[in-house]
């Protein structure tokens, strides 16, 4: 009966237009008051315990590094170099768009920021070169999603925190699926635009753009290579990323002054202020659920109805696709990962592999109506209607689903570098 009241409470909060943070906070409070010994202070103690984790430091620092690099000219320099490299390829500008999104994703860790950083330059360039508007919008929206799949990825860190999975392993495992998606997007971009020719290679242009991008190109290698090679933990890599970002954008490129650095820091604080309360209340609820052995009971109940690994993967992916359409990825990871991961493990699925499946799947939600964040951002950025953008992203949703099936069916795609 208490469970019914909890559902009624959550539905009432939805209707009352409450933030996810309020729903999780009140759900945690309800759980402690009704199913525990009735002391509300436990929720705050859980929050305190949650926020006191060193591993969480990676999130603000990667976000700050991504924001600094987004504000500077790194995207511009990266795109110029990739355009010079892909010039003789038929449909080269389309390919450069996908590769630029991938390159910037390896720095930013955010889907919307990747879409805006690359889109602000490439959308106009694609239209001026005669590329189809629908393709341009679709490629940029889908390319933006690479921001949360290619490490450093904030949703992957959240998954690691909530499920006690190694964040370094998750970052390493993100590489293979990212290559699969970039290959799918790239192949589609080339096939659809094969008749377009940009020109021929210019050695002087390649050298000139390479020199301009010389400090931007090694950044992903320094940040991710440090983790892959075991030089840094993800938290240390995040600190290095901030240091390198400030060094390159403020001292070398001189694209950011101190006042812009202040603005970027405040923007990042604001984004963190939206994310962290959700994370903290989700951890509080998770601590309660773990204490009450809810995940174990959930696994036992589900094992009665789900017969095989295949059936579980199908069910989990359909659930995640539906959830991804109506809830933002951060909240979905925080709420669902503690419940689904033990179940996945009970069917022999590696938690690192399942984390990657989860993030790629929820990434599709950035492109699906009614609440796809990249659709909403693209509406404002490109001044196009919801319907136009929804049509434009449709082929890329199919490509992402094809990639998701491949990644889910072949664990080696994600795990070939892990361990």
């Amino acid at each position, binding site marked *: 009966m208490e469970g019914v009241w909890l559902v009624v409470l959550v539905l009432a*909060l*939805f*209707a*009352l*237009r*409450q*933030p*996810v*943070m*309020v729903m999780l*906070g*009140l759900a945690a*409070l309800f759980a402690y008051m009704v199913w525990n010994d009735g002391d*509300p*202070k436990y*929720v*705050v103690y859980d*929050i*305190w315990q949650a*926020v006191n*984790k*060193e591993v*969480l*430091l990676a999130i*603000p*620092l990667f976000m*700050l590094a991504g924001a600094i690099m987004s*504000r500077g000219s790194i*995207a511009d320099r990266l795109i110029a170099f990739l355009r010079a490299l892909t010039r003789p390829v038929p449909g080269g500008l389309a390919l450069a768009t996908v590769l630029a999104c991938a390159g910037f994703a390896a720095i930013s860790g955010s889907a919307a*920021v990747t879409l*805006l*950083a690359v889109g*602000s330059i490439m959308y106009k360039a694609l239209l001026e070169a005669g590329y189809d508007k629908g393709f341009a919008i679709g490629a940029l929206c889908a390319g933006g999603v690479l921001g949360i799949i290619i490490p450093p990825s904030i949703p992957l860190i959240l998954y690691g925190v909530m499920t006690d999975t190694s964040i370094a392993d998750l970052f390493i495992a993100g590489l293979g699926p990212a290559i699969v998606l970039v290959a799918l997007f790239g192949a589609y971009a080339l096939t659809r635009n094969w008749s377009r020719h940009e020109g021929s290679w210019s050695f002087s242009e390649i050298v000139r753009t390479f020199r301009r991008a010389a400090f931007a190109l090694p950044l992903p290698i320094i940040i991710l290579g440090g983790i892959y090679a075991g030089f840094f933990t993800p*938290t*240390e890599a995040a*600190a290095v990323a*901030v*240091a390198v970002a400030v060094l390159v954008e403020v001292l070398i490129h001189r694209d950011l002054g101190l006042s812009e650095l202040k*603005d970027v*820091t405040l*923007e990042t*604080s*604001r*984004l*963190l*202020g*939206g994310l*962290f309360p959700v994370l*903290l209340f989700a951890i509080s609820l998770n601590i309660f659920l773990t204490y009450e052995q809810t995940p174990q009971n959930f696994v036992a109940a589900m094992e009665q109805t789900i017969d095989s690994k295949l059936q579980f993967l199908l069910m989990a992916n359909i659930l995640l696709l539906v959830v991804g359409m*109506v809830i*933002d990825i951060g*909240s979905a990871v925080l709420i669902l990962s503690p419940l689904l991961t033990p179940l996945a493990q009970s069917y022999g699925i590696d938690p690192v592999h399942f984390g990657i499946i989860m993030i790629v799947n929820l990434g599709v939600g950035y492109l699906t109506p*009614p*609440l796809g*964040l990249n659709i*909403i*951002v693209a509406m*404002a950025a*490109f*001044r196009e209607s919801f319907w136009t953008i929804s049509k434009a992203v449709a082929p890329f949703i199919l490509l992402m689903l094809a990639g998701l099936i491949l990644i889910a069916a072949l664990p080696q795609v994600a795990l070939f570098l892990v361990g």
Partner: protein
Amino acid sequence: MKPAALLAVFDRIERIACLLAFALMAAALMFDVGARLVRGSGVLGAPQAGVIGMIAVSMFGMGLASSAGEHLRPNFLDGIWPKGWSRAAFQAADATTGLFFALFAVIAALVVAESYGLGDVTSVLRWPVWPLQSLIVAAFSLNAVRYFIFALNPDLRPHGIADGVADEDVAALSPKGEAR
């Protein structure tokens, strides 16, 4: 003091606190990594200092997110209210959020009192916990007042990404801060 002026004061306090805390967090971690690379061992207590900075950023950043209307909110049930009720629906929403923050500010204050009484200290740095936990009380209290002001003065309410994208949201996300 007028409500708008009070909100501006809150904003200023939270901005300064976030800048100082972010600087502490980044500097502590960078010194730690630098020391590890140079002399093979990190700086004692640096990660803990970073965590303290993170606590402050996350708590005061919550206020910045509130004043920008940026708290993550599923809006798929927004349509259940008749269109003419939109203003009243947002007032009810803000009053509810204000009550939530006020409730947690009180609970957090009880926890702070308990920690003070028990003399709890942090690990490694051995600092008293209660002043740090007080950040939660302060942040929740500021947000409670802020949301009550929004409920009473709907014109001061920010409309963020969950209410439909405004130009400033895109500007904030975009390189060089340009709205397109």
